[in-house]
Each structure stands twice: as structure tokens, then as C-alpha cells.
């Protein structure tokens, strides 16, 4: 079924078409949400919220881009909001428990590149991390990233470049091994 026809049927209240739309996109959205949040529950919440909003606002979709791109615009907004909320919650909890500062993890010298890299990705600002994960981990193109995040392709490239620079900085200790 072609996308415009599918959308038309969803708008007409066809439950089977809704499920088809969901099945076609849910994997990519859940994967991205999971990679960004690192929590199954939160990733599921973000995915659900994305589809809830999408079904509510599908009438506003004008077909300027692919439906998947539009869905990713909704998804990245939902995920970034969820991450902001989680950070605020963590800050409150940390303040209440008077625990140590968040963010930087204690990583022993013997921890390998992979774990150190994952920790460094965690520490990237969310917007850089989103671009890095979408491009380097999930294989999105800069055009797709630009459309989803509402930024220019050049901005997406620049943010990826900055994210890589930060990661290189965090992994400087390994630089000698690859020269």
C-alpha cells in the first residue's frame, strides 16, 4: 500500500491501516529511543507517545517529507523532552540525597575503549548525542537527521564533527594505539 493511501485510510479511522503504519515504523523509533535513553521503560514510553501524537496530528501532515521523517521529527522531540525531564528528576533526587555530582563516571584506567567510549557518549550533550547516535550507530543520513531535528544538513554535520572531537578528547589515551 502506498503511503498517501495508508495515511488516508488512517485518517478515515481504519484500524488495520493504523496498525500497518505502526508496524512499518515502530522498530526504528523504539531503537532510537532506547539508544538515547538506555532504559526500556522510558524508550517504550517515548515510542508510545510518539505514535499517540502522530495519530492525533496526522491530519496536519502535509506530505512535504516522507511519513517516516515526520514521525522521527515527533520522536526526537519526545525523546529530548523525556531526557530533559529525567535530568531534572535526577538533579532533584541528587539534591535530596546530597549525593555526588552526576555525569562523569569513575572509570578505572584498565577499562577498555568500548566501555570508555560508551561512557563518553553518555556524557555528550543530548543534541550532539542524538546526531551521533542517529548517524554513527543507527545509520541515518544527515538529510534525515536534519529533517528530524529541524536543522540544516550542514548543522548536522557540524554537530557530528563536534561530537567526534569530544569523543576523541575523552579517548585521547587510546590515540597512541592507533597511530
Amino acid at each position, binding site marked *: 500500500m502506498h503511503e498517501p493511501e495508508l495515511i488516508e485510510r488512517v485518517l478515515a479511522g481504519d484500524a488495520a491501516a493504523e*496498525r500497518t503504519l*505502526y*508496524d512499518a515504523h*515502530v*522498530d526504528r523509533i*523504539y*531503537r532510537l529511543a*532506547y*539508544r538515547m535513553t*538506555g532504559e*526500556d521503560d522510558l*524508550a*517504550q514510553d517515548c*515510542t*508510545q507517545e510518539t*505514535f*499517540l501524537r502522530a*495519530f492525533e496530528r496526522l491530519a496536519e501532515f502535509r506530505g512535504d517529507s516522507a511519513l517516516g521523517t515526520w514521525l522521527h521529527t515527533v520522536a526526537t522531540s519526545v525523546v529530548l523532552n523525556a531526557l530533559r525531564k529525567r535530568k531534572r528528576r535526577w538533579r532533584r533526587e541528587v539534591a535530596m540525597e546530597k549525593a555526588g555530582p552526576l555525569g562523569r563516571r569513575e572509570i578505572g584506567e584498565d577499562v577498555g*575503549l*568500548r566501555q570508555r*567510549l*560508551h561512557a563518553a*557518549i553518555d556524557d555528550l550533550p543530548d543534541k550532539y548525542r542524538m546526531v*551521533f*547516535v542517529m548517524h*554513527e*550507530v543507527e545509520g541515518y543520513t544527515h538529510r534525515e537527521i536534519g529533517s528530524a531535528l529541524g536543522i540544516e544538513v550542514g548543522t548536522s554535520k557540524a554537530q557530528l564533527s563536534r561530537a*567526534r572531537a569530544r*569523543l*576523541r578528547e575523552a*579517548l585521547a589515551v*587510546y*590515540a597512541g594505539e*592507533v*597511530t
Partner: protein
Amino acid sequence: MSSDDRLDERIRAAASDYREPPETPREAMWERIQAARAGRELREAAARRRRGRWMRRGIGIAAVLVAGIAIGRLSSPAGSRAPQVATTASGSGAGGAAAGRAPASAAGTTGSRALVAYRVAAAEHLGRVEAFLTLFRREAATGRVDGDFRAPARSLLSDTRLLQASPAADDPALRAVLGDVELVLAQIAQYTEEPSRRQDLRFIDQGMEQRGVLLELRTMVTTARPSGLAQGAL
């Protein structure tokens, strides 16, 4: 290939299993999406019903007010307005009860008929305000107050201000109640659900409690309703 490029390559390879997602829980999420959609539809339907109810009540109030004002204007002697009459009506006492009885004793005059009309409108209006504020306080206690309260609060507020500008407000007791009601309704009309405004709910509630607004309203609604004779004057 520069060392940066080589490191980037290693980074890319090592990043491939960054937070590797489990299998997508398609069915579980789909069920929850369907349940959430059904829930939202129910809530929206309930909100629409509430809005419709308040809209109908608002129209009712407006109709009574318009009738009151029209009767007041038609029955006032040329060149003098109802305040003259209001002085007669409320002059016997500041209390709502006294003021409520006064029109009956002067029902034969055109001025008192005008005042009775205003008082009917005021009593009707205050009854609705009381119902609205009771519902608002009940919802506020459960923390479920949402934007649905703003529209009826605005509508009641505008009717309150109409009454404040009418001869009905010449009665000091009624004027005091209308003043309190205006303040509370204005606060509710401006209330938003933003997290930073949550404490406003408490302030509104405390303000109502401290000024005894609901008690005042109930007393006024009970005593300010014109007697059968007065209603007959309409």
C-alpha cells in the same frame, strides 16, 4: 589516514553496540497506545460535556441578567435610575436577608420591581457561582484542576462584573459578596497548569477559606432569593 581518522573509525566500530536495544516489544506497546487513545477520547468527551454544560449555564445567566436589566430600565421613572430604589430596598439593613425582604414590601412601586429583577438575577448568578466554586474546590483537593475551569470562570466573572455595575450592588452585603466572588473567579480564570503555577491552586483555596466565600455565598443565595411575591413581580 590521519590518527584522528583512525580513532574515528575505532570509535564508530566500538559505538555500534552502544546501548544495544532489545527486541521491540511491539504488541505490548500497541496495546498501551490503544488503551491510552481510548482514555484520551473519554477524557475529551467528558471535557466537551463539561464545557457544554457551563456554556448553557452561562447563556442562562446572561438571559436572566438581560431580562433583569431590561425590566429595570423599562420600569424606572424617566430621568432616575434604580439606585434611588436600591436605597429604599437596602436602607433597612445591610444584611442580605433584610435586603431580600425589602422588595416584597415595596412591590407596588415600579422601582422595587426593578430591584427585584436585579436581585433575581443576582440570586441565580450566585447560585451558579456557588456550584462552580464547590466543584472547583473538590477538583483542586484532588489536584485534577485543568484548563476546563478557565472558560466558565471567565464567563461567571463577566456576569459578576455586570451585576457589580447594576443597582443590585447598591446593597452593601451583596456588593461585598460580589467583590469576593470577583477576586476568586479572576484568580481561577488566570490559573494555568504550568508547574510553576501549581501553588496558585493552594492560594486560591486558602483565599476562599479565609474569606469564607462559600459560606457567604450560601447564606446570600438562601436569603437573597426574592419571595414568591417578588418573583411574581417579574
